[in-house]
């Protein structure tokens, strides 16, 4: 089966503050199987987010290839939606206008797109907030709206870059549970970057650990925990702890290396 996303010996370069570029990985290969929820963890500065931008087609690898369902990516990835770490809603559009933007851009009429946007807002628990502007909502509510904005276009792949890292712990767990609920209905391919190993295990089918610079795949760990999961409760079961300790043993070495390197 063709993987949904395939990184084929890519080079990752990060811009440095002085305007240069730092090569953090060469010859990195990774296949993401369609329909899987894959979390990528690794020490900071190892290029996790850059990997996501490569899959999005927002950046291009100086060397190596990125393939989406077998086709080499040369422009914006048309099969993917992206949930950013920062607020990415347009502040001058109301919530409903933000959510219907995707369909609007794809050529649908406003009249057609609006009921659908309202339906999605209801699904993420934002009914009644349609006419508010983003700044009038809490951080968690803005994330829900962003979720609706990316799911309304029915993408086959979801790219998520630490989407809940700015939220408080309670809101975060609620959002994680809701994300799993949405995901269970559609089983889209998800690439979820996080620095939080617990979050990675609680959500994913598979956890990919990246090493410190030069980044390589340190390990790929299948997460065989039962679904549907409650992200708060799953952290209590022994299998979770066992897996956490196994992955953490690998990850801590890399985090330590990144901190000292």
């Amino acid at each position, binding site marked *: 089966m063709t993987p949904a996303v395939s990184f084929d010996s890519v080079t990752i370069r990060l811009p440095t503050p002085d305007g240069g570029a730092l090569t953090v990985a060469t010859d990195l290969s990774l296949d993401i199987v369609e329909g899987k929820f894959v979390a990528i963890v690794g020490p900071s500065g190892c290029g996790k987010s850059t990997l996501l931008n490569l899959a*999005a087609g*927002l950046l291009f690898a100086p060397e190596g290839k990125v393939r989406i369902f077998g086709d080499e990516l040369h422009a*914006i*990835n*048309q099969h*993917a*939606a*992206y949930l*950013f770490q*920062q*607020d*990415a*809603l*347009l*502040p*001058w*559009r*109301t919530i409903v206008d933000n959510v219907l*933007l*995707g369909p609007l*851009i*794809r050529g649908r009429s406003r009249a057609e797109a609006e009921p659908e946007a309202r339906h999605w807002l209801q699904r993420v628990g934002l009914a009644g907030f349609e006419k508010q*502007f*983003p*700044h009038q909502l809490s951080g968690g509510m803005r994330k829900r709206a962003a979720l609706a*904005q*990316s799911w309304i*276009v029915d993408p086959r792949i979801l790219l998520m870059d630490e989407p809940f890292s700015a939220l408080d712990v309670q809101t975060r767990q609620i959002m994680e549970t809701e994300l799993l609920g949405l995901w269970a209905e559609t089983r889209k391919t998800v690439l979820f970057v996080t620095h939080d190993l617990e979050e990675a295990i609680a959500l994913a089918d598979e956890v990919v650990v990246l090493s410190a610079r030069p980044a390589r795949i340190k390990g790929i760990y299948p997460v065989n925990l039962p679904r549907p999961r409650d992200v708060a409760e799953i952290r209590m079961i022994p299998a979770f702890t066992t897996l956490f300790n196994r992955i953490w043993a690998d990850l801590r070495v890399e985090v330590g290396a990144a901190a000292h390197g």
Partner: protein
Amino acid sequence: MADPVTFATGTKSREARRPVIIALQIGFFIAWMALWEIMATTGLADPFFFSKPSLISARIWEWLSGGFIYEHLITTLTEALLAFLIGTVLGVIFGLTFARIRLLAAVFNPYIRVFNALPRVILAPIFLLWFGLGIASKVALGVTLVFMVVFFNTYQGIREVNPVLLNNVRMLQASQRQLLRYVYLPSAMTWIFSSLHTSIGFALVAAVVGEYLGSARGVGFVVAQAEGVFDTTGVFAGLILTSVVVLGIDLLIEKLENYLLRWRPGG
């Protein structure tokens, strides 16, 4: 972090002080006018140079009730409005083009700096020669002033678009044209709107200065005529009338701005 309690009481006490402040403002105005009137009447200030509030207000009333001033006011406002509209449209178009095409910005950078450093009021005599004594020369002068303000704000607005917003809309499969429509332009609009006060003020300055230097109509012309016959009362009446009109326009713009930028936090 803002303490909600202090914040609330702070707002309340400001609300409560509002009538006091207004009373003091009116009191100051009356005292100032009374002092001026007394100084001019007693001869402490020469009424030939300073006129008197009673004479000035009588003159303004005469102009308004007699209908003399309307033709001039309408001329000045027409010039300012045209300069404002043309300058804004050109400023947005050029700002947009320069911000999107790096080479253009790099090549023209020194010329734009020179043109911006030039005190543009100095162009008034040239425009009078080129475009004559009618409204065209005043509009041209106003356009050069408004254009620069809007141009720089648009340029800056486009260059400082939040890259996350841009990437987000790009991921929603927006074309270049759609990015312009949904991200670049609305983002630059906030900068352009915040420059409205400055640019409408410039447009009026240009109109009045242009009229003052050479025209047959307009508030600047009225002031120049009064000055020509040493009619200080007429000069002051013209100045005050212009200020009141500008103040009125400013209040309207503020209302418009508050409405259009209502999506902004704390706006």
